């Protein structure tokens, strides 16, 4: 059930629910909100929260360190194992061939991508220059300004219409 405030918070709520001016530092509404928030129910951390939190932080750090050690050990084992196998058996010809092909393919892809980006950039520069040439002509500037003014006027009219609509809707029943 809603409770009407009668005593200590009354002035604060009157201040809050009255005319609320735009934000400015240290205004009276600010003080009223500060007092209003002092009525919020306090939440105290449960017993043992601090110890649990510190334990969790240390455990998370230990887990992170364990993971890093395992990952480092696995990487070293992989490198040492692969090197040992290659040293003992020698690298098969197909491994060397595949590596060479992959390397060459990567270089070709890189060159092709860079060329495509450069061509696109050149095209955009040409298009931009053409648009700029047209845009600086007096006729173009006049047309652009006229279009912008027309758009602003249309937006303003729409805004007025919508506000009128809202006022009409919220004015309550018209008859009955």
């Amino acid at each position: 059930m809603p409770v009407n405030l009668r005593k200590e918070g009354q002035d604060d709520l009157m201040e809050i629910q009255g005319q609320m001016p735009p934000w400015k530092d240290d205004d009276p509404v600010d003080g009223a909100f500060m007092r209003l928030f002092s009525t919020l129910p306090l939440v105290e951390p449960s017993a043992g929260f601090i110890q649990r939190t510190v334990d969790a932080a240390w455990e998370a750090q230990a887990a992170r360190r364990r993971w890093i050690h395992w990952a480092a050990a696995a990487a070293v084992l992989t490198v040492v194992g692969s090197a040992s196998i290659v040293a003992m058996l020698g690298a098969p010809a197909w491994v060397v061939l595949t590596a060479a092909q992959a390397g060459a393919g990567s270089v070709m892809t890189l060159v092709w991508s860079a060329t495509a980006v450069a061509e696109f950039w050149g095209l955009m520069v040409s298009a931009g220059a053409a648009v700029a040439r047209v845009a600086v002509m007096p006729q173009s500037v006049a047309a652009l300004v006229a279009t912008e003014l027309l758009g602003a006027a249309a937006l303003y009219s729409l805004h007025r219409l919508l506000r009128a609509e809202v006022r009409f809707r919220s004015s309550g029943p018209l008859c009955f």
Partner: protein
Amino acid sequence: MTTSDAELARQALEGSQEAYRTLVSRYSSAAVNIAARLVRDRALAEDLAQEAFVRAFARLKTYDPQRKFSSWFFQVLHNVSVDHLRRRRLETVSLDGLQTDGYSGPPTDPAASPEAAAERTALGSALRAALLRIRLAYREPLVLKYQQGLGVEEIAEILGLPEGTVKTHLHRGRKELADILAAAGWKPD
């Protein structure tokens, strides 16, 4: 003499559990209270606060001692809370559905009459419910400003927003909050 937060952070980084325990005890209440304004469930608020402390410890190397530790830590808490709320859509509550689910009452004046104390408790519950109904972008700056008493500059730093945006959010949040309270019957007689 009280050891500074920056000094405690340095000691914690060197492995001192005691130093980090002191830091946690300094900010545990604030952290749980901030989180409790962002989520509905008290236990979840505690979990978020704990996760923030754990994440802060893991990233303690990135803390710049020139900055206020509280601002840096509240930034971590903000990130943890936002991550959580992104994972689970924010719950909204009705004004009637919120009473005393694990929350102690507001700080009361022992000299106040029982009626005044009851009104204060009811207003606190209504405010808490109203806070949970306004959007997070407005709620966070309101909580940091009016519950924690932080300045606009510090709030902007914590939330990673320009000061002008924080002021706008505070202004709009205050208006929304006042509207919700008014709609719930909290009007001056």
